[in-house]
């Protein structure tokens, strides 16, 4: 017994009920996926100007010409993708390492100021980013003069509070006895971290890596602020300037949008379990 009766007296009734449910869900799924479908399908159209284009839901012919157009139009198209990859990869690796180190320290080692420091981090999570954006911009651009560098793109998100919180929650659930007995055997803290904590928290690290990579790949705001030449832009910023440079070319725009989304789609379908798991971490207890 559950919320829904699974043992209906009439089998056909149960069958019909589930049929209707699946139909409703599919109908709504179609509406949800429509923009993505529209993006992908239109990217295979001819790279003609919008006035001549017809917005069909099923193109009469498939061509990759718009993709070629996208890469030919700007000499930086490949560079944008490369920049995004470099930034997202650096941010992801450093977050996994430093957030898990901090998470381990906050959850399993006693030290002076632990609670105060952690409370400070938690408070920071509630402050809207609008508050820090101006001082952060002044700091990076005017004081450090790092405008238009990879450092400026990467450094502010080297380790985020959310990831520290995530790994602290997870590492708390590792029994302290394991760590204690390792200490009795003469293990140093560094050894404990590498030999015990790391292997046991692979799941949360995978979740962290995926969510951080996605966040970093998709971020538009910060790269938009701190880059001022085409060659340092990430794909998201490049996509925007591409759009404004040339609003009338419909299919190439969709090709660009598709290209920027494809790496994330591939990651999503191959690591779906971790994506979906990651969403609930911190939101649902137990």
């Amino acid at each position, binding site marked *: 017994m559950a919320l829904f009766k699974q043992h209906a007296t009439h089998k056909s009734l149960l069958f019909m009920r589930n049929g209707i449910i699946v139909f409703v869900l599919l109908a709504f799924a179609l509406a949800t996926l429509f923009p993505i479908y529209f993006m992908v399908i239109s990217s295979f159209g001819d790279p003609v100007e919008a006035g001549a284009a017809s*917005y069909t839901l099923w193109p009469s012919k498939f061509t990759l010409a718009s993709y070629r157009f996208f890469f030919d139009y700007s000499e930086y198209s490949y560079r944008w993708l490369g920049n995004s990859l470099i930034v997202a990869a650096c941010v992801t690796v450093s977050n996994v390492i430093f957030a898990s180190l901090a998470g381990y320290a906050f959850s399993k080692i006693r030290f002076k100021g632990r609670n105060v420091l952690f409370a400070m981090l938690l408070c920071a999570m509630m402050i809207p980013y609008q508050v820090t954006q101006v001082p952060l911009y*002044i700091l990076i651009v005017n004081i450090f003069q790092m405008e238009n560098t990879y450092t400026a793109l990467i450094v502010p998100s080297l380790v985020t509070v959310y990831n520290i919180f995530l790994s602290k929650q997870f590492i708390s659930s590792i029994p302290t006895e394991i760590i204690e007995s390792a200490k009795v055997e003469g293990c140093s803290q560094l050894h404990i971290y590498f030999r015990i904590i790391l292997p046991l928290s692979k799941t949360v690290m995978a979740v962290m890596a995926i969510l951080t990579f996605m966040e970093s790949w998709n971020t538009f705001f910060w790269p938009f602020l701190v880059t001022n030449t085409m060659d340092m832009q990430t794909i998201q910023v490049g996509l925007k300037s591409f759009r404004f440079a040339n609003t009338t070319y419909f299919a190439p725009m*969709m090709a660009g*949008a598709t290209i920027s989304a494809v790496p994330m789609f591939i990651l999503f379908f191959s690591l779906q379990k971790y994506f979906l798991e990651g969403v609930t971490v911190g*939101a649902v207890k137990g």
Partner: protein
Amino acid sequence: MAHLAKTIRKRMFGGDSAWAYAFIAVALVVFALFTAYPVINAFMISFQDYKPLGSTYIGIDNYINSLNDALFWKSVKNTIVYTVLTVPVSLLLSFAIAILILPLRKWMQTMFKAVYYLPAVASGVALSVVWLWIFDPLQSGIMNQLVGFFGGSNQNWLGTSATSMFSLVFMAWLSSHGTSIIIYLAALLGIDNSYYEAAELDGASFMQKIRFIVLPFLKPTTLFLLVTGIIGSFQVFQNAYLMTGGGPDNATTMVGLLIFNNAFKYFEFGEASAQALVLTLIIAVISFVQFKFLGNDVEY
């Protein structure tokens, strides 16, 4: 024994402070430099007429100017309208869908979760490009074709004040519930079957089970989604910036966008900081009120 274990633990972990500080060092430096310092700095800037070469202290003028600025209040109003139209609808939709997914087989649950979450994986910029074309003002735009099919007339969706806010809301309706569906579903799966069994023995109907078991159990989840949803909605910037730029006639200028414009279009850093701090205050008050009125019997 427990006492002994405690002393042993204390002894063993007591000497590890140095290690602990080493482990959190990078995190602390990043936090101090890129969060704590900017927050303090924002306070200082908000009382200044900020200039790269020598700022002047002007007291609370930035705050007074903002609070007397009609555009500031209009942007607050726009943000509230956007929030009221999107957050509750998204919650209701997510709840209904999660309930519908629940009786299905495991593989179907996974499939629908993945399908609904997919738009969250695509970047906001890519999706905004697509939506711009869905809302294309020409007769051939998809939205116009759809409205035409139902007998409506051609609209300049993003270009007129009457429809631009609705267009942004519509876009949010169709693309922002994947996360809440998964969170609701996880919470629903966490409800023990024995409650339903007991209710069924008492002859409870489906709606009664929803009313007396599901809703009370999902209250903490709903509160969480409501608070995070409203906080997120108050900071909305990207869609308004990319889709309408705040126009037409500031009909879609949200607080987040106004602060961005003040800071990076007009370089009024002082005023932008003051407005950001007012925004923080508004968000804090809203969250506090929600916890006060909805969360009094919620346990975490």
